[in-house]
């Protein structure tokens, strides 16, 4: 068209006007550390694998998960999921059921027979892993992926450590345990069972190992001196659970008192109920708020008929009767004796007062420090400088399977650096994706999906798994509740809300780019980004 001068203009000519020069601040895309990832003792990229799960790419999700943790079906059952405690969604409605989705993925992997990644190219380095619990298995897995040769030794008849001998089957079915362990062993781990290591230096030099990872756990139940008429009716919880796992349960009678307030106490009480105890009473010297056991386990136990005596200590165990002393909490929250006593009928007493480690194998180890029953380690999990690494319950840390898995991974990388002669490097962590950085308006209201629980009556009498898995639909729903804190999940908001069309959508999974030729720096994209993955930075003028 031969259009009239000036009053009629050809389309799109304004692109010659680069309004980016108006800008004093520019938006930039960032990745922030989601609180779940930050809290995961195993260092999982939870947001990352949920992102895949949201799309229904379950195998990809599982693969991203086992990058860090080779035991998702187990963790999906026994992990106390600190990720959910810190989940930002708590402040919207309820935490994302991360643990349930993890279990769904783990179970699906077993069902589908997905294999762990192939071992890395052989380095010919030989690593001895002592203890086949979660720490040892995790270390073995990561070491194999790094191409190292691994010998895994354990004093027990079967692999799994406390996962097998401490956690009751109704919480962790043995088929699941076996499946995930077998998958690691299939990577080419040299397993030696029923083998007690007495002297680590001797074992190491005899086998010519380049490095050692000690993951011997804390297998000794703590005892306290309680006056007892019949000491045969007093048993520590670790032994009790171990015997149950061995299918050789002790006879505890119908009235069982468990002394302690941690998860092991509840495992013991719930196990006792399943063995036929009509009364399973937990005696704990503090109150509910200060109890160590997880809320879920507590609720489930109460649902199964377990009762709790708060603010009480066991002062004497006479045949068929326990004398309790009432306690009160002082201003600092510590229990103090009151001098008031009461009695409780009991056939047996289970002590769940914590566990000790047996570290006698380190007696001849040079420059390894054992303090207060734990091995002192550096960040790389190395004890001293001699190539002896330690992790799991044997080192000072929270004693959970997930922490142990994390230790195993970190130790594997520490060992890798050590045997390959590299100096360890700490990874740069992203800034935390706090709730304040989110724009939660954009998240649909969606309450959490509950995992089905076995009917109470049924679960009181057998060791079937109590908590069922999520259906695929529920798992998908749950995964999609993830807010993707601090990490772009391609919602197109920035692309849509820019008044200047200054966001380029790259498509695929390549996210977006700013077109700084036109971005005026208004900051709407930052404000309207649901997950806080954009920030404004001052323009250099």
């Amino acid at each position: 068209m031969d259009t009239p001068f000036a009053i009629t203009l050809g389309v799109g000519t304004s692109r010659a006007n680069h309004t980016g020069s108006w800008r004093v601040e520019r938006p930039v895309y960032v990745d922030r550390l989601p609180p779940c990832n930050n809290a995961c003792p195993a260092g999982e990229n939870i947001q990352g694998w949920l992102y895949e799960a949201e799309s229904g790419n379950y195998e990809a999700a599982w693969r991203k998960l086992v990058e860090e943790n080779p035991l998702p079906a187990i963790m999906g059952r026994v992990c106390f999921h600190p990720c959910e405690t810190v989940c930002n969604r708590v402040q919207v409605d309820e935490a994302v059921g991360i643990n349930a989705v993890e279990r769904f993925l783990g179970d699906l992997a077993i069902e589908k027979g997905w294999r762990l990644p192939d071992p890395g190219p052989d380095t010919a380095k030989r690593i001895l892993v002592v203890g086949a619990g979660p720490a040892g298995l995790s270390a073995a897995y990561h070491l194999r992926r790094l191409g190292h040769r691994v010998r895994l030794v354990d004093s027990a008849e079967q692999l799994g450590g406390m996962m097998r001998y401490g956690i009751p089957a109704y919480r962790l079915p043995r088929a699941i345990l076996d499946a995930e362990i077998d998958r690691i062993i299939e990577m080419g781990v040299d397993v030696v069972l029923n083998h007690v290591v007495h002297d680590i230096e001797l074992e190491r030099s005899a086998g010519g190992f380049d490095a050692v990872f000690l993951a011997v756990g804390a297998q000794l139940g703590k005892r306290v001196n309680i006056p007892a008429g019949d000491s045969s009716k007093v048993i520590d919880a670790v032994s009790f659970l171990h015997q149950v796992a061995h299918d050789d349960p002790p006879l505890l009678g119908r009235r069982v008192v468990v002394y302690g307030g941690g998860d092991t106490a509840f495992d013991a009480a719930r196990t006792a109920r399943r063995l036929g105890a009509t009364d399973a009473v937990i005696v704990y010297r503090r109150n509910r708020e200060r109890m160590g056991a997880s809320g879920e386990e507590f609720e489930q136990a109460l649902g199964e008929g377990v009762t709790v005596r708060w603010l009480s200590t066991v002062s004497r165990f006479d045949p068929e009767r326990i004398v309790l002393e009432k306690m009160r909490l002082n201003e600092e929250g510590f229990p103090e004796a009151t001098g008031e006593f009461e009695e409780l009928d009991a056939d047996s007493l289970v002590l769940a007062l914590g566990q000790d480690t047996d570290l006698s194998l380190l007696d001849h180890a040079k420059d390894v420090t054992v303090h207060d029953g734990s091995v002192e380690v550096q960040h790389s999990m190395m004890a001293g400088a001699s190539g002896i690494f330690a992790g799991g319950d044997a080192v000072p840390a929270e004693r959970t399977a997930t922490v142990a898995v994390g230790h195993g991974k970190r130790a594997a990388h520490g060992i890798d650096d050590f045997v390959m002669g590299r100096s360890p490097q700490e990874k740069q962590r992203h800034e935390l994706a706090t709730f304040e950085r989110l724009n939660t308006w954009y998240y649909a209201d969606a309450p959490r999906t509950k995992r089905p629980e076995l009917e109470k009556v049924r679960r009181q009498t057998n060791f079937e798994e109590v908590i069922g898995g999520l259906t695929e639909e529920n798992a998908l729903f749950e995964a999609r509740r993830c807010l993707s804190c601090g990490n772009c999940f391609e919602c197109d908001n920035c692309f849509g809300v820019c008044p200047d069309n200054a966001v380029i959508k790259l498509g695929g999974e390549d996210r977006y780019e700013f077109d700084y030729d036109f971005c005026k720096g208004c900051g709407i994209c930052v404000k309207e980004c649901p997950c806080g993955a954009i920030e404004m930075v001052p323009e250099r003028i």
Partner: protein
Amino acid sequence: MTDQRVHFYQVGSFAVGNRLLSPDDRTVQSQRDRTNSIDSGHRACQGCGEALGARYALDAAMRATNGRVVAVNATGCLEVFSTPYPETSWRIPWLHSLFGNAPAVATGVAAALRVKGKGDVRVVAQAGDGGTVDIGFGALSGMFERNDDVLFICYDNEGYMNTGVQRSAATPPAARTATTDAVGPEPGNIFGTGKDLPRIAMAHDIPYVATATVADLHDLERKVERAMAMHGARYLHVLVPCPLGWGSASNDTIHIARLAKESGLFPVFEAEHGKVTSVSTIRRRVPVEQYLSLQRRYGHLFGSNARPDIVARIQAIADENIARYALIDDATESQEMSA
């Protein structure tokens, strides 16, 4: 609500797009090949709600008509910032004539298209609130009354922003403008004045009247699509915050539009042939104070000489809107005002 909310997705109902949504459920704005009816390089202020609203509406109209849209524009910010010689930002056929005549010009365009046998090409006329409720009102009413085949969109930023923020008949009570100064016993714009154009439009019994904001893109696009599926006179009234005129932060444009709706001050609804057919209920109700306090045009209501009495009068307006349009779902009522 007639629109089906997409549950199940983390952001499906509210964000611009989402890779998990089926393509049909994604907004036009999430598409890489959207028209960008108004292109980059325009001279709107940072964070301009009108530039955003215009692209939202016209791109949606373009999709709804398979790219067969011509636009008529009244004088105002949108016209000035989009077409200063020698550059235009428009990628669609666009005509600007005068401030007060956009509805009539659109009538002429529609008539010409009809007589030329191009009935598939659809006409969208657009103006700010001044061009709609004040100077263009007569022409608009005429266009409505004749039921001309035009979708008229008012981008309401509640004042004459292009000329330096003067009062229009869409300026809300208590708002400070250059002609309603925040002085005297009744500072800002006077209570009991102003026009409610969506209701006036409804009184014409035209096929479609709707309100929307730039804060709910899905809703806005759905309404444009609905409007383009109809013939005859249609009216869409879009609230577009103006950082300059409202004294708000440039990044708050969408946030403030959302608060206008969530407080009840700006009811979002649609009506057909004079009857309300749906309302967008309030999802997270907020007191008007949250909306007002982000804007310097209401600054005189807060701070050292705060006027809670005036804030209460504005809250009463919001409450009346909520009652008039039933903006609160029974189900969500229990959660209201908790924020």
